[in-house]
């Protein structure tokens, strides 16, 4: 994939980004950027090491080949003409986009690896759980004796 990256023209890169924005658009309030605007294109063309494939190569080559096309229509055309290539592109985009720390943070996740800090979960007083489970206890045992 690195060969595609170095060979990518400004126009090709622009087209790729616009198709990526069609796959994952920005939120209407602009709070969450689309995939192209967030810089996922670099990850796509440089490949995600073990996830890159000939299918992905084909998908990138296809979307950058028609600079004037409507990005959504271009993505849809690829989805119909070469489903394997499209699926590889889609999976790669989803992986690259949602592994970005700033995107994770927008969904409330830690931008950092979740271990060792983890997440705070509200404490669960024993009394609260006892009250919640009380109706179940009141009905008594219901397993089959055998």
């Amino acid at each position, binding site marked *: 994939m690195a060969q595609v990256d170095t060979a990518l023209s400004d126009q090709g890169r622009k087209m790729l980004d616009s198709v990526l924005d069609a*796959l994952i658009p920005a939120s209407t309030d602009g709070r969450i950027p689309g995939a192209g605007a967030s810089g996922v294109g670099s990850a796509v063309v440089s490949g995600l090491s073990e996830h890159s494939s000939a299918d992905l190569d084909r998908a990138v080559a296809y979307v950058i080949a028609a600079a004037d096309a409507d990005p959504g229509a271009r993505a849809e055309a690829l989805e119909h003409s070469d489903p394997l290539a499209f699926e590889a592109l889609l999976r790669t985009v989803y992986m690259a986009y*949602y592994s970005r720390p700033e995107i994770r943070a927008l*969904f409330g996740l830690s931008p950092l690896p979740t271990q060792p800090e983890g997440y705070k979960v*509200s404490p669960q007083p024993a009394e609260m759980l006892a009250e919640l489970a009380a109706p179940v206890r009141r009905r008594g045992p*219901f397993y089959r004796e055998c």
Partner: protein
Amino acid sequence: MSEDVVDVLIVGAGASGAALAWSLLETRMRILCLEQGPRMHDRDFPSRQPDYELARYGAFSCDPNVRQLPQDYPINAEDSPITPVNFNAVGGSTINYLAHWPRMHPSDFRVRSLDGVADDWPVDYAMLAPFYEMNDRNMGISGLAGNPAYPDYSPPLPPIPIGKLGQTLANGFNALGWHWWPSDVAILSRDHDGRAACVNAGTCDLGCARGAKASVDLTYWQMLERAGVEVRPGCRVREVEVDPKTGFATGVLYHGPDGQVHRQRAEMVVLACNGVGTPRLLLNSRSTLFPDGLANRSGQVGRNLMFHPLTGVTGIFDEPMEGFKGPMACAILSQQFYETDPDRGFVRGYGLHSGRHTTPMTYALGGYGIDDPIPWGQAHRERMDEMYPFSAGLTVVTEDLPRPENRVTLDETLTDSDGIPAPCITYALDDNTRAMIAHAEDRAEEVLLAAGARRVVGKGRPVWRRAGWHQMGTARMGRDPERSVVNEWGRSHDVKNLFIVDGSIFVTAGAVNPTSTIQALALYIGDRIKANLANLFD
């Protein structure tokens, strides 16, 4: 070729092999365990890496066909809607399991007597109860005592927080008057035995770098290695050898880390390779005495493969459910529909387990164990902004009944990196399971709506493909040598010094995650071995 003879040779360092070894410690027998995978360290676990989620789709996938690591063997599952998943390392699949820890019910051991299907087990709940308890202590189980779905028992540690998601769903079950209970989990709710409490990171499948999840490398193997039991990583067993004169197992041939084939001799061989690996090894161990595979005079080796077919139904609520916080699979479960009710149109039953939606990436790719990316375009935005944060799911865990045509055989062409024939899965759902799933999805919808969901999605989808965690039944236990592979204490009917202790000896599957029962059964078998030492091979 070594002529060194050990007393007990265990193949597989996962849940069952470790428990059996621990049980035999007091005999002072020399125990050696061969494990095809490596020894893992917390630094190896992706949960401490910035791109941790990517590992879920690569080197830390639950699917060996995706991982394709040198220690993995491929599995041909083209003829099955469910593909087996596992992990190969010291600790076995407890490295990447989700640590849900329900016990089987008393009725699960009496299926033929109660419901007229399948077979009764040659052991029962009361016989296993002390070993469930012993194992719960060794693994450090968290849970709430007094679950009315079981005879009384008390998990050693208090329950983990069920969180907002669990509380919301519990209210839904209460509104309908249905059973639910906080899940028993092999995850620490507080610091215990030198291990740290869970921090709700939600990466249970990527190895718990904190050590809160009870993988057996952190529990049993710590005790075992301190006591002198040897585990030899990177050793893949290709065949169990048998003396053609006596019919006894003499040991194994294995591929070592040096790439060479070694012979390890033993007085007793124990297989603990899971419900796919064990029949594969037996079927690969052909000899003049056993032309159809070792211990297979009954023809039952590889047959009666059972999974727990899984589906999921999701409720969309008005408030964020924080599904990425907390252990992936464990908050609460309902066993309201676990037991047979003839009015439902199927026998046996199912559980409804709360499910979290993990991270945005996993959700976008279809969910854990599912390969079905969500839509792209504006529909993607809507799913991620209006559904993902507000989702709480119920996983349908159905009981699979044993059928001889569901089986593990050897693939004619596919092999692992050492040239050993790979397993081939032939498996189909039956009408009973389909009826059960339809019933369960309707009940899940009911409870989600009762819990306040404004919308319910996910009904009618195929069973989850990459979700064959629970592999059972392929070398089943029983008293009749014509219809079973091992006897009531795990000893092969055909080879008197060969034992099997993993999920392959299950007679039926229940509708619960099996690791708790697998280990209780291994401890029970260890106890029986000790009780019968004087005439163990008679």
